[in-house]
């Protein structure tokens, strides 16, 4: 996403989906996972006459509300999308001027889609070509149409290609940057957008600044610490600038000593897990082994993390009670990039402490408390969390957090009744502002940008072009937007580079005073603390990050343009040769990850003939650590099951309600209840991923500390999901796995 | 001649059948709104397929499918009768028993009581063992309690509900459970006809003395069959605890069984009252016999020679 047009986030917002005339829901199940998003989708369907097209391996509750439903095989999203693009190309449905003005490299895509004829797509995906043609027609002829996706796309070995091609589809149709269009990624957790913006990631510092030396220097200055001191904390400068282990791969850093060479010569020895359901990643049995092997494991959670009972270690396992979200306050960012103030409802219960207090305490004991809190700029007398919010607002210039101060976010949340749903526009005291100041929100006066890349608005009112992030030209072709494709009111009518101290005067036509010049010396829009560059750019109607073309080709990626690749454990072994996985990758987030060798290790489908479709149930969230602890939710959805098509179940000799063993391609196996359902096709089993607390048939209830066991337990489906990680981001492959099922 | 003896021998059965048939005909034909076809097909469906949901044929429309899934099918087949049955019970069932009592009064006035002429009261014969007496009296107590607590439900209007009525209602279920073994024991003990089949020492010890008169046999059969229906329907209704999610699968079975429960309770009570009249009122001396277990020999000689014969035979 970010590599296509600058930012990786939902481009529009939830209420905006009401403006759509056609909505593709592809690899997402909002009816179960984001029920309130369905409110807007269904309103678009009913009042705006939008066509709802659902493309999913499973006939979900969302699909039940669709106009067109296409059932595809898991992991064939790219083939389907190329099929659509080919139809769009052949029927001249694509937006020529949009592609001409604002997109780079579309020819490559049009070339690549050539082989995906409807017949060929039918062969790969299993979706009848008539449905593909219907879906493509309905979507391409609707103006505007929006595309919704979710973990159904991202949790694949080719997850990053999926999302890129989805973006490209919207570029082809010119649906970007307009209300009712866009790519709407429904994120998972309540603050996943926020935490990602905050850079709780192994490959970047907050605000997507990356890990380069300049970024560290910038953050050293923001945190008001000495860069040399910060560097001294690390083993070496190389390690400081190298990506760390990711959530899906860290256990390899414990188990596989060979990876130590990527990790400063040491295997992992300790884990500090703050509010993370680590059993939701694939190959949970590896997680267990890793947990057993570590020297120290600390879980900081309001509830007992289910990984704490999965592990059988006897010592050095600490559980610290964290205050729940309603017992501390702060900002949260929803999937539409709107910030909201989550107020503290009550004081922390029992002996629980908020996360930050625990961190402060650790910092004190480890001797860097002063450095840790220096960034707030108030010494010891800071107010949590307001001062931290303002610190973030000062620091995260790349994503335009400057305007999102605590005071403004609070004002919005307190006045939420004054905002309109479809446009997010405010009235009265918050007039001309958008709810939650969706980023980028460039200055304290900026209203926020509810629709990204919208050039029909001035930058000062939330308009912008695509970001200049990948240089200004490549192979002699300009990467800047064409003339006429600039936000309304822009001084420069075409594309331009990102704003720096060198080009500011030239681009904005504003002369800087000597004093100002001195302040911005050597800075650019990302690093300028004085705000002069951004302010002046806005005055001239310029987006601080420039105005470029979105690109379909990502140089440096393993697949420069998205390519269909069969899953590592493919149900169609005959297609593997034609669409093989990439070669194995060394030092992928400090781990060696197998791709082609895993795919070719054996004829997987011979031994494991059933495909997994995984997903969530509406009652539970994540591992269900929170929700399974609720008696009412546990009552509604109290046990793990696997949905089998009655035909398949009959072949396997399993009756409705009987127990069955599911064996994964790894070592994991689970014993679950069979539930007859027509939601899945005849080759698949659906496994909800929200359960834990039973381990290969053995209940772990007795392992919980007294009085903390949740109300419902079930096998963890990720024990049987296969090996596999995204080839760029290492997102675990939970969606394409093969299993063998036997009657228990 | 042949037919005449047949008639006289089986007068009781024939009259009972005719009476029941007449009442049943009037009842079914004119006073009920039950869908009888459904009522008969439904248990067959349950027995043959094991499916209790009551959906006898596939739904023809989405609407119908929804009704089946949400509320249970064919509401009009049984449910209105349930509504009416309990309504009318409150108002009219009373009269059924009033009428029966009136008949007894008439019979008492006409025939009076049979009294044996006992000249030698000390010459007694042991008729009922302790076990027999325990079974009989426990049955009497529990059935009376069941009747009281049962009527507490149907005639709740008179009590107006409240805690006492609630307690009585919940004891009805408990008592039903208690009655299950007692009913079974009674069925064994009173199976006088079994002596035709087995004639060993155990059956002699266990089964009550004597043999049945036709009317006695009818009452026994009604007791067994209706008792079984009452117990089965009552305990099943109780066991199939209402649950919102399984409601539509079981509600039709529950309605059906409640209907069976109502019907069986009326029949069993009618015949039990008959029995009480014929034992306690029409013949003098039985109460004492049931308490002590002993009867004067002359009483038996005059009023129950079959019992005496049985006892003699055993010796």
């Amino acid at each position, binding site marked *: 996403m970010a590599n296509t047009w600058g930012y990786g986030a939902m481009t529009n917002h939830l209420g905006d989906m009401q403006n759509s005339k056609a909505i593709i829901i592809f690899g997402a199940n909002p009816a179960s996972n984001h029920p309130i998003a369905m409110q807007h989708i269904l309103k678009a369907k009913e009042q705006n006459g939008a066509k709802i097209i659902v493309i999913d391996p499973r006939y979900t509750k969302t699909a039940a509300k669709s106009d067109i439903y296409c059932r595809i095989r898991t992991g064939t999203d790219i083939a389907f999308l190329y099929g659509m693009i080919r139809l769009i190309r052949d029927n001249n449905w694509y937006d020529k001027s949009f592609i001409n003005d604002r997109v780079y490299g579309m020819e490559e895509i049009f070339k690549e889609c050539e082989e995906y004829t409807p017949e060929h797509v039918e062969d790969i995906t299993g979706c009848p070509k008539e449905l593909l043609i219907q879906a493509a027609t309905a979507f391409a002829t609707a103006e505007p149409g929006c595309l919704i996706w979710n973990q159904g796309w*991202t949790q694949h070995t080719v997850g990053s290609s999926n999302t890129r091609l989805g973006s490209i589809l919207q570029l082809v149709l010119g649906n970007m940057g307009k209300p009712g269009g866009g790519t709407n990624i*429904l994120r998972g*957790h309540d603050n996943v957008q926020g*935490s990602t913006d905050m850079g709780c990631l192994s490959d970047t510092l*907050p605000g997507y600044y990356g890990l380069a030396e300049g970024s560290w220097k910038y953050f050293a200055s923001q945190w008001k610490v000495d860069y040399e001191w910060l560097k001294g904390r690390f083993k070496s400068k190389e390690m400081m600038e190298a990506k760390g282990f990711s959530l899906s791969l860290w256990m390899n850093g414990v188990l596989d000593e060979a990876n130590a060479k990527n990790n400063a010569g040491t295997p992992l020895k300790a884990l500090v897990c703050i509010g993370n359901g680590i059993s*939701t990643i694939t190959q949970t049995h590896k997680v267990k082994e890793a947990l057993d092997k570590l020297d120290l494991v600390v879980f900081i959670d309001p509830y007992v993390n289910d990984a704490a009972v999965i592990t059988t270690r006897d010592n050095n396992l600490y559980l610290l009670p964290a205050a729940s979200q309603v017992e501390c306050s702060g900002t949260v960012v929803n999937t539409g990039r709107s910030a909201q103030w989550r107020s503290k409802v009550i004081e922390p219960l029992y002996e629980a402490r908020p996360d930050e207090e625990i961190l402060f305490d650790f910092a004190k004991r480890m001797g860097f408390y002063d450095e840790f809190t220096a960034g707030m700029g108030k010494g010891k007398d800071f107010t949590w*969390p307001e001062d931290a919010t303002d610190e973030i607002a000062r620091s995260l210039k790349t994503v335009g957090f400057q305007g999102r101060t605590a005071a403004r976010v609070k004002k919005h949340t307190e006045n939420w009744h004054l905002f309109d749903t479809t446009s997010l526009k405010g009235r009265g005291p918050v007039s001309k502002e958008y709810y939650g100041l969706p980023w980028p929100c460039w200055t304290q006066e900026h209203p926020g940008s509810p629709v990204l890349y919208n050039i029909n608005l001035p930058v000062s009112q939330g308009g912008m072009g695509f970001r200049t992030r990948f240089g200004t030209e490549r192979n002699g072709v300009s990467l800047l937007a064409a003339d006429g494709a600039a936000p309304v009111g822009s001084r420069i009518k075409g594309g331009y580079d990102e704003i720096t101290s060198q080009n500011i005067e030239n681009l904005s036509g504003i002369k800087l005073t000597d004093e100002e010049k001195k302040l911005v010396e050597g800075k650019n829009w990302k690093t300028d603390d004085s705000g002069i560059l951004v302010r002046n750019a806005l005055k001239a109607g310029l987006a601080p990050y420039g105005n470029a073309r979105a690109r379909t080709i990502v140089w440096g990626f393993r697949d420069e343009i998205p390519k269909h690749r069969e899953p590592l454990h493919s149900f169609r072994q005959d297609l593997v040769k034609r669409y093989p996985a990439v070669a194995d990758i060394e030092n992928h987030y400090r781990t060696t990850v197998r791709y082609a060798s895993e795919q070719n290790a054996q004829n997987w489908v011979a031994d494991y003939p059933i495909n997994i479709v995984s997903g969530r149930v509406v009652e539970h969230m994540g591992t269900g650590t929170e929700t399974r602890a609720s008696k009412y939710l546990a009552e509604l959805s109290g046990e793990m099951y696997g949905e089998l098509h009655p035909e398949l179940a009959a072949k396997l000799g399993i009756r409705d309600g009987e127990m069955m063993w599911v064996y994964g391609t790894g070592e994991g196996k689970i014993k679950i209840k069979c539930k007859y359902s027509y939601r899945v096709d005849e080759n698949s089993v659906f496994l909800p991923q929200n359960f834990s607390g039973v381990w290969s048939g053995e209940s772990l209830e007795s392992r919980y500390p007294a009085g903390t066991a949740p109300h419902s337990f079930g096998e963890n489906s990720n024990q049987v999901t296969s090996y596999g990680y995204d080839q760029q981001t290492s997102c675990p492959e939970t969606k394409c796995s093969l299993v063998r099922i036997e009657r228990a | 001649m042949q037919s005449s003896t047949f008639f006289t021998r089986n007068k009781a059965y024939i009259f009972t059948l005719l009476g029941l048939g007449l009442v049943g005909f009037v009842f079914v034909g004119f006073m009920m709104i039950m869908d009888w076809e459904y009522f008969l097909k439904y248990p067959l469906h349950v027995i043959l397929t094991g499916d209790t949901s009551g959906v006898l044929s596939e739904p023809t429309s989405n609407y119908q499918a929804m009704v089946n899934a949400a509320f249970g099918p064919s509401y009009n087949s049984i449910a209105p009768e349930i509504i009416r049955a309990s309504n009318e019970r409150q108002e009219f069932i009373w009269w059924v028993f009033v009428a029966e009592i009136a008949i007894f009064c008439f019979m008492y006035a006409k025939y009076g009581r049979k009294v044996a002429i006992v000249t030698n009261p000390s010459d007694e014969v042991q008729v009922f063992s302790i076990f027999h007496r325990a079974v009989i009296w426990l049955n009497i107590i529990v059935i009376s309690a069941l009747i009281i607590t049962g009527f507490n439900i149907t005639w709740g209007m008179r009590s107006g509900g409240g805690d006492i009525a609630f307690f009585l209602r919940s004891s009805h279920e408990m008592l039903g459970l208690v009655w299950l073994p007692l009913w079974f024991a009674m069925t064994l003990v009173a199976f006088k006809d079994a002596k035709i089949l087995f004639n060993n020492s155990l059956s002699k010890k266990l089964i009550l003395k004597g043999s049945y008169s036709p009317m006695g046999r009818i009452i026994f059969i009604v007791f067994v069959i209706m008792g079984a229906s009452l117990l089965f329907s009552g305990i099943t209704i109780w066991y199939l605890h209402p649950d919102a999610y399984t409601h539509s699968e079981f509600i039709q079975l529950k309605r059906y069984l409640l209907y069976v429960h109502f019907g069986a309770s009326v029949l069993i009570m009618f015949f039990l009252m008959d029995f009480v009249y014929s034992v306690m009122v029409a013949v003098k001396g039985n109460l004492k016999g049931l308490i002590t277990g002993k009867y004067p020999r002359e009483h038996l000689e005059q009023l129950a020679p079959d019992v005496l014969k049985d006892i003699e035979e055993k010796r």
Partner: protein
Amino acid sequence: MKMLKSFGRRSFLKMASLATATTATSAFASNSVLRGATKDEIRNPYPGSKLIKTICTHCSVGCGVIAEVQNNVWVRQEVAHDHPISHGGHCCKGADMIDKVRGTNRLKYPTAKVNGKWARLDWDKAMSQISDQLIGIREKYGADAVQFLGSAKCSNEQAYYIRKFAAMFGTNNIDHQARI
């Protein structure tokens, strides 16, 4: 017979008739005339409570939640009708927000496993034991021997400080749920 008629009329079209069944409304209604509510009838069940606006903690939609709090006890979850995204709507998880404080199976105090048995610790002891070990591991193996996992369920400020903590601890081994 009158009764029979009334049942015959009773068809199963209740559902469909909902929208149109405005006839025969007062068949069972009492004859009392409309009157104003008495003071007693409209009294507040939670006197002195205040309403706090907060945000649902489950998915990324960000539905509004209004918590009614009396004496630092969350007594009732109210409906945020005017929230621009959710309009008061909740799925079952959001409707159950209050269970976070009502549920009794929270982790209540620092706990550690000692020789296979769970033992209660006080905060100070737990924190010093953990930090001593972390410092020890850092010295012995280097900071990269520690893996931090943050959360997408905490606030921006907490997430930012978790990242900062990992950086100042000296490692990039920090991650959370989101990957793309």
